[in-house]
């Protein structure tokens, strides 16, 4: 199995897709570092780095944007990624608004885009599975 195959347009070139993935992991690891080193209630350089949280999802949205018309399941993954990034932003707000042991209302609101995001992923997998099954179970 090959992770990076050579696909014709509308796919990005193989080198571009590798660059997208490197950018994804660089930003994601920076964000994890920012989360580790930032202190809620204070503003520092690491707080700014912590705000990179939704960027990895946006990089993946950029990678999938060109190919969204190939199949409806890809559009649903795109919507799911957008909702996950929204949920991530709300969790970020919860982190900085968090006082004491109980989470804020943002933690509760964040569950809504996360649930809808999971629903989009689920619908995407089901759509891809049922449309592929046509290949095997086609009648006539």
């Amino acid at each position, binding site marked *: *199995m*090959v*992770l990076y*195959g050579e*696909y*014709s347009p509308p*796919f990005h070139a193989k080198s571009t*897709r590798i660059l997208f*993935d490197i950018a*994804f*992991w660089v930003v*994601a690891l920076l*964000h*994890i570092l920012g*989360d*580790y080193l930032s202190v809620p209630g204070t503003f520092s350089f690491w707080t700014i780095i912590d705000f990179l949280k939704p960027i*990895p*999802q946006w990089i*993946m949205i950029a*990678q*999938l944007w060109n*190919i969204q018309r*190939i*199949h409806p*399941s*890809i559009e649903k*993954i*795109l919507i*799911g*990624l957008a909702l*996950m990034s929204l949920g*991530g932003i709300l*969790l970020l707000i*919860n982190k900085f608004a968090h006082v004491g*042991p*109980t*989470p804020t209302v943002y*933690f*509760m609101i964040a*569950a809504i885009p*996360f*649930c809808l995001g*999971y*629903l989009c*992923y*689920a*619908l*995407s*997998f*089901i759509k*891809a*599975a*049922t*449309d*592929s*099954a*046509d*290949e*095997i179970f086609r009648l*006539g």
Partner: protein
Amino acid sequence: MGKRILYVIIFLAVVAFAMVRLCKLIADLPDTHPFLTWQLPIHTTFLLLEVLAALFYFFTCYHLDEYHNYATVLAVLGSIFAVMSDDFLVHYTLNSSWHAKGWSALFLLTYHIADFLISKSGVKTAAYFNSRGRPYDRIQNYFGDFHIKVGK
């Protein structure tokens, strides 16, 4: 077959761990928002729906070709990482003994891995449908021919 059983065992182990820990956590919470009593089960239901859909995708299409085989494996692994991620998040946020930076980092790592794997699964799925032509186009062509015949 052994590989598929391994995925199911991993799935059951992760989900069972998450569910048991979450139930224990909710039961042990001394003073918390009442919304958690209904928020966590609803959230877990949607999460499990995603995992079951990924497993449905895996068992339906794993054998079609290399693109789909890879797409379905990535979807299942991404969903399992999503379960792990949310489990770490809930424990980090609600369980004071887990409220350490290390658990937060682990939550974020699994959160990014889940999104990465699911997105790559989308790329492979698109590559499959692109290599075969769009299914709707084929169905439209099929019924298009049918209507022409009826018309004649």
